[in-house]
């Protein structure tokens, strides 16, 4: 299926991130849940890629699988190539050096992702201890510098403060400072702005873009908010029921969605003046991951569905130039349907 159209391996020197056939399953008492299935995508240096979908679509699981943060009873197969090495098969110590050093990750809720009993400064410095040879004074200097970079005022004092003494927005900035301490080449951001007020959201997104430029870093941004994608991402991949159903540049996908689910998502983006409640307007609910429907997983909620959608799962095929792909039997009909924006 996808293997015939996507190059399975790039030359050893290929920079950036290559995800191929990434599949994550969980053995539960109710059967095997397929949280992410056969996920393929690339991230070029300096690029910001958005992973979009409802909760339970597998976007966060995909991100965690890349970092091998999936715990028992979860199982990850497939390949995650980073600088020619496969993260999935990498020995623990080598992986440890990649984590935090070359690839960093930030989480949705800084209140729970920051250790409550360690000062922010200590949480930055332990990262430097793990990946650099800086001495105590140099680490402190670097920590101060990072606090300035992410825009936390009065950094000298704040380095000795604990997470509960920070406001929500400052806490997220602190988490970014911690994650970026060792100048990683790739940042995995799991809904970094969801827990924040709208105005703070914009500041944090601007900060991320600014850091991307400053540190020549790639970003994978997981979000359920298409507004965030439009504002920050170069390319996007839409996920549904653990699979990527559509991918392409943000401009292309927004201009002409080729998958009915993407179309539905775009239809639910609020216009100016409306409140930001997302993804409410697609009828039906996401499927149970232990019991996916046959054929296309989206067919029970799809207005374009026909006989074939019930029987055959559509492959993620090229549907245009610029790496534009969609997994829909009826992508031409969807693309030709009247615009929704």
């Amino acid at each position: 299926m996808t293997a015939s159209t996507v190059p399975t391996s790039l030359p050893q020197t290929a920079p950036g991130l290559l995800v191929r056939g990434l599949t994550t399953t969980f053995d539960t008492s109710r059967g095997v849940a397929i949280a992410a299935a056969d996920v393929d995508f690339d991230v070029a240096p300096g690029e910001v890629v958005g992973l979009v979908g409802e909760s339970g679509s597998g976007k966060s699981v995909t991100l965690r699988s890349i970092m091998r943060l999936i715990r028992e009873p979860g199982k990850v197969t497939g390949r995650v190539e980073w600088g020619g090495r496969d993260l999935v098969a990498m020995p623990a110590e080598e992986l440890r050096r990649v984590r935090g050093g070359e690839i960093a990750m930030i989480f949705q809720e800084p209140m729970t992702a920051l250790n409550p009993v360690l000062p922010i400064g200590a949480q930055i410095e332990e990262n430097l201890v793990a990946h650099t040879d800086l001495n105590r004074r140099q680490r402190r200097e670097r920590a101060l510098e990072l606090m300035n970079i992410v825009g936390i005022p009065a950094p000298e004092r704040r380095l000795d403060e604990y997470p509960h003494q920070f406001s929500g927005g400052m806490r997220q900035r602190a988490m970014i400072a911690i994650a970026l301490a060792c100048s990683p080449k790739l940042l995995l951001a799991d809904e970094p702005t969801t827990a924040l007020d709208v105005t703070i959201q914009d500041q944090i997104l601007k900060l991320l873009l600014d850091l991307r430029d400053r540190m020549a870093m790639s970003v994978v941004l997981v979000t359920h908010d298409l507004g965030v994608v439009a504002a920050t991402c170069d390319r996007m991949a839409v996920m549904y029921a653990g699979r990527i159903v559509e991918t392409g540049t943000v401009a292309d996908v927004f201009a002409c969605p080729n998958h009915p689910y993407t179309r539905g998502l775009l239809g639910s983006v609020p216009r100016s003046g409306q409140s930001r409640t997302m993804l409410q307007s697609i009828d039906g609910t996401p499927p149970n991951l232990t019991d996916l429907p046959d054929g296309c997983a989206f067919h029970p909620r799809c207005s374009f569905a026909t006989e074939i959608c019930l029987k055959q799962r559509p492959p993620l095929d090229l549907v245009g130039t610029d790496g534009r792909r969609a997994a829909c039997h009826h992508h031409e009909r969807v693309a030709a349907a009247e615009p929704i924006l």
Partner: protein
Amino acid sequence: MPLFSFVIRRLLQMIPTVIFILVVTFVLVRMLPGDPASAMLGDRARDADVNRINHELGLDQPLIVQFFYFAERVVTGDLGNSIGLKVSVASLIADRLPVTLMLTVMSAVIALVLSVPLAFVAAMKREKLADSVIRGTFQVGLSMPVFYVGIILLTVFAAQWKLFPVGGYGTTLPDKLYHLFLPALTLALSFAAVLMRNLRASIINVMNAEYVDFAIAKGLRSRVIMIKHILRNALISTVTLFGLQIGTLFGGAVITETVFAVPGAGRLLIDSIYGRDYPVLQGLTISLAVLVSLTFLVTDILQAWLDPRIAR
């Protein structure tokens, strides 16, 4: 300095507790059969003498006044004289309490040394064989009375294998530690069971926290993750439990000292009961209660130090 004001606040909170301790012991002493004057003068005392003594002791005053006399004496360190041993209760306690303190500290250390690594192994190998074996062993340990464990350890390690003395207390510090090892181990086993049960649950809880994922994603070494992130947070609830269990530990010390003939405060307590030496009983009850509330203070400070969110 938030920790400092926290300590002050906590010290102030101890005042009502101490008052209550005094009230309880006062009531307990009033409940005693017979009156002190008769006890001091013997059965054939004359009424006039009894009245004189009662007057001297302030026992003809209203109860509330008596209580204040009592409280005043206790606070100034005057706990009366032992009926049986003819010395001041304060000096007796000063003599015996350090032994008990050393015993409990030793057993607390042994319990920690046993429970922390085992709790880690059990939590990491959750629901696997190692976990079941460790938990099963401790479950049995929890159901074993202290005196039973003591007798068995005494018989096996001291009487049969002659690795340790059968009882008593040494003179030099190493000798004391050697004498106290078996009693301390006895006391530590059930304590370790309680600690390990709590610590295992809280380690499992902490391991699922997102900051542990973040620590892994930062590429920290697993030793750092275990100690600075998992253990440090898991210990917060265990410290509370540790404090709450100190009373149980003192209770266990009473029995252990009896089994191993350790000349500590617990042994003194039992002797004072058999000898109807009520001033000693009263003095010991007050001292142990004050000691427990001091331990609460220490564990609270420790907890505030471990968890900066508390000292606010």
